[in-house]
């Protein structure tokens, strides 16, 4: 009998995701977000299923057609179907988003765990390096890497990934330190489990749990980031319809062909939004805040 408020509040705490999903009523916004993500995943995996035209075939006779029945989202200045280009650009854009997160989390995991768990003489230097990298402008890190690797999807992915690594590393470190002090880690130690087992069974998975949502969130943000680099002319080689490149190219025609700028932008927003929504939802579930 501790907290008088517990009796009117739903128990906050933790439980397995699966069982929670089963009992929690999923909000409409999450359903819509999941549908959007599904749409984009299909577009990335099998663009031809969703596209209506070729994304690369030019048709100089129908350049800058406004959105219509034939070209749902209009055409660009050399007659390519914008809708199909957005669909075909999904793979590149999502790959950059997902890949950047993979890079960021791979780096951040190693750095974060080491900084939190390694002996002082290892952890301290890593903490220092993290501190230096955090003081570095993220965009500059990305710029340097693009300059180093040349403009391509791969270098965008690596640049955005590495640029955001220090931030995530610090989060993982903080999370690991928190889990390290938790009751169940102590319980496992008291039970007689050696450190490696405690790490594998408890620390690593639980430190990651609240970050699962962050990954989804980061995918959306990475797409935005990468498109920003494309916008600065550090993007993917044409004619790739990567979204940032579409925005860059559409800018010149915006006064007469608004669709070239609006729709790719909306695609980016939609991806960022739906991934963020799902990310937050997963995070809430993981932290037990979902009702």
């Amino acid at each position, binding site marked *: *009998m*501790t*907290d*008088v*408020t*517990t*009796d*009117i509040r739903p*128990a906050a*705490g*933790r*439980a*397995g995701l699966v*069982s929670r999903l089963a009992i929690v*009523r999923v909000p409409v916004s999450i359903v819509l977000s999941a549908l959007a993500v599904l749409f984009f995943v299909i577009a990335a995996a099998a663009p031809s299923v969703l596209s209506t035209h070729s994304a690369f075939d030019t048709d100089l006779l129908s350049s800058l057609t406004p959105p219509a029945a034939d070209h749902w989202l209009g055409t660009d200045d050399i007659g390519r179907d914008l809708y199909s280009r957005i669909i075909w650009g999904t793979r590149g854009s999502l790959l950059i988003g997902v890949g950047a997160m993979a890079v960021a989390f791979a780096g951040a995991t190693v750095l974060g765990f080491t900084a939190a768990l390694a002996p002082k003489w290892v952890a301290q230097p890593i903490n220092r390096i993290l501190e230096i990298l955090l003081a570095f402008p993220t965009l500059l890190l990305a710029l340097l890497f693009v300059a180093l690797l040349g403009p391509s999807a791969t270098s965008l992915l690596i640049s955005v990934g590495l640029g955001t690594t220090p931030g995530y590393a610090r989060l993982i470190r903080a999370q690991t330190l928190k889990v390290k002090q*938790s*009751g*169940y880690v*102590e*319980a*496992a*130690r*008291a*039970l*007689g*489990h*050696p450190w490696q087992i405690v790490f594998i*069974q*408890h620390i690593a*998975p*639980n430190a990651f*749990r609240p970050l699962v949502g962050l990954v989804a969130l980061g995918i959306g943000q990475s797409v935005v980031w990468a498109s920003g680099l494309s916008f600065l002319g550090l993007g993917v080689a044409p004619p790739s319809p990567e979204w940032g490149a579409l925005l860059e190219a559409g800018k010149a025609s915006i006064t007469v062909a608004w669709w070239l700028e609006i729709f790719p932008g909306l695609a980016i927003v939609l991806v960022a939004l739906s991934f963020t929504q799902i990310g937050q939802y997963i995070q809430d579930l993981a932290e*037990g805040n979902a*009702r």
Partner: protein
Amino acid sequence: MTTTEIESPDSKIETFPPAGKKLLEARGLNVWFTGQNGERKHVVKGVDLELRAGKCIALVGESGSGKSVTARSLVGLAGDNAIVAADALELEGETLLGRSDSWWRRVRGSRIGFILQDALVSLDPLRPVGREINEALSLHGWGTRQMRRDKVLQTLTEVGVPEPELRARQRPGELSGGLRQRALIASAIALHPDIVIADEPTTALDVTVQAQVLGVLKQMLARGTSVILISHDLAVVAKLADAILVMQDGEIVEAGPSSQVLSRPQHPYTQQLIDAIPSEHTKGTRLSANDGVFTHQLFAPSASPLFLHEAPLLEARNVVKGFKGPDGIRRTVVKGVSFSLGRGETLGIVGESGSGKSTVARIALSLETPDSGEVRFLGEAWSHATPAEQQKIRKRIAVVYQDPLSSFDPRWRVSRILTDAITLGDPKHASRARNRAAELLETVGLTAAHLDQWPLRMSGGQRQRVAIARAIATNPEVIVLDEAVSALDVSVQAQILDLLSDLQTQLGVSYLFISHDLGVIHHMSDRVLVMQNGIAVEQGTADEIFYNPKHSYTQKLLESLPRLEYAKLRLAASSR
């Protein structure tokens, strides 16, 4: 249920006006909560209560009984998702139903004061307490700035806060538990409301602090304020209340004058609550109604019960431990504690918060290494053993924490929690670990059906049973129980204490039993160690300590402890 009538003569009653005016009355109070999915939950069911001037009535019940919701409904703060209905709900004849927010704001704080438990979280931690009290005044447009400032100090003095100027400038975190709880009371009574509702005002407080706060409430009563006291603790209630209403599952199951309810409980639930309180009188008796369940003789005790001449199972010698605080300053929290624990024995360690008892527990488990001194297990090095040696001994010393939930990996179900421990205890059992887990659950009074449950979805008592099952899974010789029953409702606590006793009898296991609760300690312990500020001030058999305390601190602790009139209770029980 019957309306409470306060007629019974009590020693205190003479200081009050004989029959107070009716201040607050509820008839047929019902509260529902609307859940996320629109379904309604009936949490308060037809409660009747009546508070007369200068009286104290108490709502008693366990968690989930609806007592707090009832109290909050009386100040219109049941919550946004609550539906409150009543045949009548009146404050001095004015109805409280359907009142606007601005009307309520005028009532709250000026006519009805409301005190919550634990001022550490019930006062804004970012603001000085003086400001909070001042706010109570300014919200009701009371006085000028200067008058309010004086009033704050006056109110603080009223509730017994020394150096009020200094304290008013401090934030809750900077005050001791007793002072901040008094400050909280001050913020609720600054405008001298006729009615004060105190919701668990002493819960989470150390026993000495609790005594101080009860004293403040008593003074309020003496000044003519009427009090509605909400508590789970019958002993606390017994000190103050004129009448007691016992709540269970949203209903009042018994109501009557305190003496009557406590000494001649009519309802079995009331009876059960009273019986469940552990104390010096209950030593060696069962606290709960259910019989000891012990269907499986799972394993022979690892060694035959008593080797008279063997070394103590656990022996701490002059253990010292300090920690560096966030300010970089090292504080010694355990200052040379020695004890020994024999086979099949229970050593109780009692002390208030900050006494260092939990650190002692961690040192006993070798989760901390003492700065000096050492702990030996069966005469072998334990606190200073190599990790490999420690690994072996760990399986023979288990632990149960206050909050079992936090000691379970949130990703694991009960089965995994138990099989993990079983396999670790003896890898040979891996193949039939699940069966053994089921047996363990039955041993601790659960069933195999619980295997696939998430601890989060279990009740506090069930979780603690799982924690105990995990503790005995490795077949240990010692179990460290660190406030293992402190978070439980009294009836559940009774069951767990009984279970622990049963296990000790059958397994011959030794307990290092750490608690702040003197009653529990006395009930459980063979020998007791009293700690204060990191020092073991007194050590001896339980009866020596409790009936013949030598050290002044021990004496103070025992004096502070609110007790029921046990003789009377026992009498009542035997006459039943």
